[in-house]
């Protein structure tokens, strides 16, 4: 057990600190949007210094460093501690870029990587469909080849940045007769292609965090495909795992827990500081114990990435299930301790700097469901983590009876 990063890394940390000190004033301000010059400039500065797209090769506009998890962690820690803008990290950056680098043609890499990491192309992801939430293999949006073009018809849902995006990377069924997992292709296309309609999908928070996207005879050049026809499932899966882990980071949970703690110290009900209420304090401490467990679990995962000598399969696949649930419960405590005032929402002046517990409470319920419901997570944990059998498939006869 050695929790120190060592002298070289300490030096690197100083570099990062110095960078932040010197450049902090140039970061985008709250009002600056996705399309602002301020964001683009900041993005360039970050890439130039290796604090964004660090391992993307220089040939494609990145910084070109070797992967180094500890350096990534140090950057993350220092930017987090100083609350400095991390640059744009949409789905194009986090999910498509690795796919392009691994499976794209040279031409595709040249065309897309640099504009993507420089926030010149904003992407959205078209995976989920209304009939295929936890079950991507049964997606039905289809693309048929007509001359030199794919013609797409169907619908996507849970498309988070569709209304801001320039392009979409999308899974479509191209071989309707192939077995389910083998008939899918991975296409790229512009969002202003005729036949695309975007409808915002308002959710329980009242915001439209997601969209539905409808395709009617959308025509896409034949070569805008990553990988081979029918390999889209494999292409997408190469990065899907990445998404699942990132929904529930223990750092954020720690921050929110400390937020509740602050709230309980600062606020009083009937003249008594909330922290003096032993029942709420016990709930707080109970949650703190759970947060600590996830925090050290995360350090173990980080260490396993660096040292590659530990089996952390189980420690990894439980993070989404436990982490999202934990966040949901932390937010619930934030609500409960405030009594009636805990109901405040939106423009209610009592929401003030306390943070919107109700918003996060609902948003984290969304995350418990999204990216594989808790039920799917438990299936995965029992099957991949504990070696238990898969759900038996129904016989054909029964499908006929139960289906339809």
């Amino acid at each position, binding site marked *: 057990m050695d929790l120190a990063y060592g002298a070289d890394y300490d030096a690197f940390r100083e570099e990062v600190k110095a960078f932040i000190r010197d450049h902090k004033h140039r970061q985008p301000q709250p009002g600056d949007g996705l399309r602002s010059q301020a964001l683009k400039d900041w993005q360039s500065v970050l890439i130039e210094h290796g604090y964004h797209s660090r391992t993307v090769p220089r040939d494609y506009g990145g910084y070109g460093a070797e992967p180094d998890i500890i350096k990534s962690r140090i950057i993350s820690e220092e930017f987090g501690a100083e609350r400095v803008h991390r640059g744009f990290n949409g789905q194009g950056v986090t999910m498509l870029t690795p796919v392009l680098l691994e499976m794209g043609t040279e031409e595709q890499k040249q065309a897309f990587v640099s504009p993507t990491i420089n926030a010149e192309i904003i992407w959205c992801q078209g995976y989920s469909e209304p*009939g295929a939430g936890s079950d991507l293999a049964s997606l039905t949006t289809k693309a048929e080849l007509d001359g030199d073009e794919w013609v797409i018809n169907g619908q996507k849902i849970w498309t988070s940045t569709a209304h801001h995006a320039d392009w979409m990377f999308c899974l479509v069924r191209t071989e309707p007769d192939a077995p389910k997992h083998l008939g899918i292709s991975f296409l790229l296309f512009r969002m202003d292609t005729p036949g695309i309609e975007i409808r915002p999908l308002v959710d329980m928070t009242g915001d439209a965090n997601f969209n539905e996207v409808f395709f009617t005879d959308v025509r896409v050049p034949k070569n805008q495909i990553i990988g081979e026809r029918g390999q889209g499932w494999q292409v997408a899966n190469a990065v899907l795992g990445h998404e699942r882990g990132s929904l529930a980071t223990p750092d954020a949970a720690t921050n929110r827990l400390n937020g509740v703690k602050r709230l309980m110290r600062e606020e009083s009900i009937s003249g008594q500081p909330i922290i003096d209420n032993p029942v709420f304090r016990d709930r707080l401490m109970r949650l703190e114990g759970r947060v600590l467990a996830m925090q050290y679990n995360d350090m173990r995962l980080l260490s396993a990435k660096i040292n590659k000598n530990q089996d952390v399969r189980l420690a990894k696949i439980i993070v989404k299930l436990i982490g999202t649930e934990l966040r949901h419960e932390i937010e619930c405590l934030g609500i409960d301790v405030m009594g009636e005032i805990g109901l405040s929402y939106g423009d209610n002046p009592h929401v003030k700097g306390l943070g919107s517990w109700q918003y996060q409470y609902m948003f984290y319920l969304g995350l418990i469901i999204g990216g594989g419901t808790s039920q799917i997570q438990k299936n995965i944990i029992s099957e991949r983590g504990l070696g238990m059998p898969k759900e038996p498939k129904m016989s054909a006869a029964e499908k006929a009876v139960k289906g339809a």
Partner: protein
Amino acid sequence: MEFGLSQDQLLLDDSVRKFLSAEVPLDAIRSLAAGEGSDASVWRGLADMGLAGVLIPEAHGGAEMGMLDAVVIAEALGYAACPGPFLSTAVMASYLLKEAGATDPLARMAAGEYRVGIAFSDVIGARKGQVTESDSKLSGQSLFAFDAEADAYLVALADGQVLMIEASEVKRASLTTIDKTRSVCELTFDASPACLVTDDMALVKQAILRGRAVQAADTLGAAQYMLDQAVAYSLERKQFNRVVGSFQAVKHMCAEMASQLEPCRAFVWYAGHAFDEASDDAAVTACHAKAHLAEVGQFVAKTSTEVHGGMGFTDLLGLHYWFKRIGFNRQLLGSPEAVRQEAAVLQGLCD
């Protein structure tokens, strides 16, 4: 011996539910949530059925029914996520004004023409700054008053005095909460003239207890709706070639919801009945019913949303209106911890 609803109560339940399913469709809730339309016509309709005057004596134009009837109505209102001042005007204010002998407004309240809101923050859980009274004039702020459209408010001070004040005499700022089917506001008093209703702290406590029993029923209704929806949705929606309701995990989620919820029905009936019989255990039962339903309701609200998958998280099915109503009930008139503490105090287990 019969533990259950009478024929009259079953008819009442049936007619309220029929009215609500016709008059409060999801679209009406959506409009109200969007700040369009009002609950005025629904409240008038409910008043025409006698519901606004459920606790008001016939002599004052009321239906002179009992708390068990109020509980039956509240369950139906919760099931429909129905807006309106039932809790404030028809239950808490009606009870308090009647008991205090301040019977003047009762007839108009029973007719659905006069709404009386509740501003009890200083008694439920005071924050910095309380409302003070001097020479029948109020000063200060009441942070959390319901409803926002009332014609007058009952304001309870920390010392147990209750005063009634016309809405026109106060500055009223509407407060956004998660629940758009109920309205809440902040009242600011500036030497505002008010009228003493009672200085009997016991009456305030009794009004709050009755409110809690009714709220427990409201949560039961809302949670029952969410369970019904979850079962129905799970039998429609398919994943992996099966209706999701055929997966054991989903079946067990529904079974757990039903198992926790079903005993609550008898519980809230008794909570109402105990007031009608003036049973010794009425106060403790009301506290327990409120706190227990807050916990069960929260479990059902979350679990039903999960059974709905992504659809549960969206606005499309409107399920969240019930989720939020249950969340609102959880906090209103005291969080579960606070209410359980009171149940302990009532039994002499602590001060």
